[in-house]
């Protein structure tokens, strides 16, 4: 996982509510046994036409979307299946942060473990972002602030531990493994065993 501190990018806006992980990466692409290469299938059934050519009406196919690292999406992004292939596909495509008013629990947790930053904003900020696709905005994880194109800044909530791991580019398994002594003690002392 790459360390992340600041992100400066134009936004690409997908103004759809309740985007589920089946849309982000359809189930038929889940037979892979690696994490790599899923970006080509990101939003597959919205992004491509039946003959495999790009669907010109889908926002990721517009020339302006090229190179954008921040996705602004409608409310309740990432609902449904727990597939971690969803953040893998977004990251492989080049998206590094997702902004919405609501982000589903498992998707959010999976994203944080892979270096994809889920950012929750208030409805007024969300509305401004939705209305101004392509704005260059700045995400600063060190101060947990989001600076909009007009220079106004808001802070966003993020779990302290997840933030630390993102900033250091470190994964969380090491932290758990450092507590092995506690885990063994728990197993020995619990009143019943599974």
């Amino acid at each position: 996982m790459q360390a992340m501190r600041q992100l400066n990018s134009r936004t690409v806006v997908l103004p759809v509510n309740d985007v589920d992980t089946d849309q982000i990466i359809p189930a038929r692409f889940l037979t892979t046994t690696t994490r790599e290469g899923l970006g080509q299938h990101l939003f597959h059934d919205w992004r491509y036409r039946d003959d495999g050519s790009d669907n010109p009406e889908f926002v990721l196919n517009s020339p302006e979307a090229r190179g954008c690292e921040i996705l602004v999406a409608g409310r309740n992004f990432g609902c449904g299946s727990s597939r971690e292939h969803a953040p893998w596909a977004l990251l492989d495509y080049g998206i590094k942060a997702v902004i919405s008013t609501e982000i589903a629990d498992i998707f959010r947790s999976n994203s944080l473990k892979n270096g994809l930053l889920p950012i929750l904003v208030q409805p007024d900020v969300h509305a401004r972002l939705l209305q101004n696709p392509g704005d260059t905005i700045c995400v600063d994880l060190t101060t947990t602030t989001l600076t909009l194109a007009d220079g106004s800044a808001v802070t966003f909530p993020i779990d302290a531990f997840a933030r630390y791991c993102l900033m250091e580019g470190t994964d969380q398994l090491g932290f758990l493994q450092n507590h092995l002594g506690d885990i063994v003690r728990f197993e020995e002392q619990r009143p019943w065993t599974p």
Partner: protein
Amino acid sequence: MGTGSPTTLFEKVWSDHVVAAETPDTPAILYVDLHLIHEVTTPQAFTVLRERGSRVRRPDLTLGTLDHSTPTTPVASFRDLAVAGDSAARQVQKMQENCHEFGIELFGFGSEHRGIVHVIGPELGATQPGKTIVCGDSHTSTHGAFGALAFGIGTTEVGHVLATQCLLQRRPKTLSVEISGRLAKGVTAKDAILATIGQIGIGGGTGHVIEYRGAAITAMSMDERMTVCNMSIEAGARAGMVAPDDTTFTYLEGRPRAPKASAWEASIERWRSLKSDSGAVFDRSITVDGNRLSPMVTFGTNPGMVVAVDAAVPDGDGGPGFRKALDYMQLQPGQRLSDVGVDVVFIGSCTNSRLSDLQQAANMLRGRKIANGVTMLVVPGSQQVKKEAEALGLDQIFRSSGAQWRESGCSMCLGMNGDTVPRGKLSVSTSNRNFEGRQGIGARTVLASPLTAAASAIAGKIADPRRYL
């Protein structure tokens, strides 16, 4: 427990598993009692384990099955069955290798215990009250029907549990969902949970663990409680729980992995304390009037877009999302659902593929034929369910009505194994997700109970099951 102030069922199970308490800077370390794994969400986790030279810390608390990408076509022996595509076959093979290498019990082809991960855990009696249960699968919420704290995790977290038997978790909030009253004839657990999701909204449970309570829940069988808890994630809640009671204990007694003899008595004693104390405070509470529920069906592209089967497609909020969903479904506001033609009927999935689900559908189909032009698949949730259903002759009822009787698996719930709904066709399905393309590219899914699905197969249109009872 024992702090004096009243606590919820969730809090009791949670606090019983905290290895290290959460702080502002770090999440809690939560111990996992049962880790269920399947072929789709685990290969990358085993890769990480290998890279780090780690072993699986508690293979004895880990159980594997093959369900998502396995074929359901009937064959004489499951041993010589090839799976749908090359990559699916490779994935199944990887699962077999991984379980073998790391010493994990796998219910593979040829095992009489193979089946959908959320069907076999309870069926084996491995799912028990008070346990923490996780799986790289969002419908792990199903196991909460037994008073377990059970939730879906991602593949990175699967790796955490394999390596340490623990997870890093922030404590979620609690949501009480009381389903009061009695469900009328023809109204099932599936209808109750669909109506509940319609009421909460598909993001309404985000950040919460649901506890289902009330007379309608208490009256339900374990199969029915599992149907309810299964779809908690469809309201955004990672877990749903029901306090264990005599219905739970009767279900579990004598199952292969349930405690035996004196351990059984001791377990029941402990399990009886697993309920929310009177006066326990939930972060939020809602009530659903079970007396007033009808059979429910979805009309849009998420499980919250739901109406009574005898109603019309609503006008909605008129927003772009609502219109997009209706366009996809090829439905119009005001259109009566009973006028909508059906091409495919699917009875199966971890929501509704247990013996009682199949019995309900079979009772309705007995002596009747499915309509011309309708393809109907009945896919039992496990090989065990299949065996029990066949012993009751249900397979014969389904076959003579014109339906196909298959081997167990996830099948048309997510269409990974080649069982898909053709483009543009309308499917009435007992599964849990009607997302665009879920059952196949361009497939139009209407979620319903096994009764409504069977009635719709007979009518060739979306049908009110009460007409055929």
